[in-house]
């Protein structure tokens, strides 16, 4: 067995696997695709079927949603284990099927080049206040400017960043926005492309340290988890929902009821199961007037994934997962699904705007940041 796989075993506690099969029964992929079994993958590795495991296409079907770790009695960190296997499988030619023709991946790879100066802040208008050098807060934009182009059919991308910046301005904060911020590298890390991730991390870390900020606010669940967990930054990383929940607790905010609607909340895996933040977004939703908040049947740590992670293997199974999610929201008569992850919004919107979907499936997918900014009257009515 290769040294790197051995150490992955140790780090992820895969040696403790009891082969109880709880992970497979909980796995959202296994429900629709019985050929995929997290238990079997660990067993294959334990029995030293190394070649077999490394050429196994199933390792790319894993959503790394962490629901397996949540039910595991031995606390085997299966997503991290899959990640380690992926980075070994890639050099021998076992690669996942990249969705959107691999454009998001190419964008991340190109960003590792230090010669390029991006033009990513065109969405900032003159009435928004940002500070260029040191300030207390830094607003992490993430891939929003690219999502705006790649998913222009159904997702504006930067509308979340716009709302977040207006919210911070509303609380009297002019955050630092990095003009040449790179991709946080989340997708590259979970695809097993460690080298690309480390290049991106190094450049980002330097930029963040030069900005001398105390707090980094992210609008994205994946960015939040990556910056917090894999970057070792001195600055405190907070998700915008935590920031808002904190403000709601300590200040009296004059929210305006925009329109009465019944909403439900989709827990993104990176913010929920990975970072353990379930309460902050719910606190914000409860505080919004005119918003009636209902829980879906499977919520919090049981919330199923939106169906795709790291832009790979978007297939029929992933569509079924999204259908299931939407039906779950329909069952509680919700008019909109609110989420805190831009990628979950893209994936679910992709499904709802799909022409094959009947009008009965009509469901708004919206981001919490936008909902909040609208409630405070920070956005024009058109948006």
């Amino acid at each position, binding site marked *: 067995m290769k040294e790197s796989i051995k150490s992955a075993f140790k780090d992820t506690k895969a040696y403790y696997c009891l082969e109880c099969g709880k992970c497979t029964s909980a796995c959202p992929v296994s429900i629709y695709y019985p050929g995929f079994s997290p238990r079997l993958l660990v067993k294959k590795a334990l029995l030293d079927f190394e070649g077999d495991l490394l050429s196994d296409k199933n390792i790319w079907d894993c959503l790394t949603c962490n629901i397996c770790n949540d039910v595991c009695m031995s606390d085997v960190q299966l997503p991290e284990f899959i990640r380690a296997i992926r980075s070994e499988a890639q050099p021998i030619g076992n690669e996942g099927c990249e969705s959107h023709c*691999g454009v998001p991946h190419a*964008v991340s790879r190109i*960003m590792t*080049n230090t*010669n*390029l100066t991006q033009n990513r802040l065109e969405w900032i208008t003159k009435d928004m206040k940002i500070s260029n050098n040191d300030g207390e807060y830094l607003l992490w934009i993430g891939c929003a400017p*690219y999502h705006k*182009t*790649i998913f222009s059919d159904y997702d504006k991308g930067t509308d979340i960043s716009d709302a977040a910046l207006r919210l911070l301005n509303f609380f009297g904060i002019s955050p630092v926005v990095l003009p040449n911020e790179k991709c946080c590298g989340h997708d590259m890390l979970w695809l097993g492309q460690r080298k690309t991730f480390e290049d991106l991390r190094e450049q980002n870390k330097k930029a963040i340290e030069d900005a001398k900020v105390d707090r980094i606010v992210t609008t994205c669940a994946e960015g939040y988890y990556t910056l917090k967990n894999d970057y070792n930054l001195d600055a405190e990383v907070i998700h915008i929902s935590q920031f808002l929940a904190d403000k709601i607790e300590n200040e009296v905010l004059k929210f305006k009821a925009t329109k009465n609607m019944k909403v439900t909340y989709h827990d993104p895996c990176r913010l929920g199961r990975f970072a353990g933040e379930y309460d902050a977004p719910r606190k914000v939703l409860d505080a919004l007037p005119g918003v009636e908040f209902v829980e879906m049947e499977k919520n919090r740590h049981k919330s199923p994934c939106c169906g795709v992670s790291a832009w790979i293997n978007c297939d029929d199974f992933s569509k079924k997962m999204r259908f299931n999610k939407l039906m779950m929201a329909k069952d509680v008569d919700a008019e909109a699904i609110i989420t805190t992850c831009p990628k979950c919004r893209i994936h679910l919107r992709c499904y709802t705007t799909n022409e094959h979907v009947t009008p009965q499936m009509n469901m708004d997918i919206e981001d919490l940041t936008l909902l909040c900014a609208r409630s405070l009257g920070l956005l024009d009515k058109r948006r």
Partner: protein
Amino acid sequence: MPDFQPKILAFACNWCSYAGADLAGISRKQYPPNVRIIRVMCSGRVEPIFVLSAFENGADGVLITGCHIGDCHYKFGNKNAEIMVKQAKELLSTLGIGSERLRLEWVSASEGQRFSEVMTDFTENVQKMGPNPMFAETAEAKT
């Protein structure tokens, strides 16, 4: 940098532009040897990732050529190419590579003269722009 010889990748559609390139050859029209042509069945086949990969691998300019609007062999393939190029240009400009390094041109099978003109003009333009910013340092070191 007058000595700079750009690497240009051209996608030519099978039905019009590739035939146009053929005609340019048969009629002995001259155009710079910097252009590498890839034949695709339709300009609509070209995806943003083709363009990004070209730049990632060292191209200094990318040219996409297809049938004139209304002449597409597949009815609306070139309309798709227009949408695609708009998206790719946006990505290139956000990334900082520059949207002007990508160009979309319509060349029909009878326009051998135009094919050579387009190639010459684009090569000169890219020459003025200088090397792909991703490889700026290595290109300078070579010359």
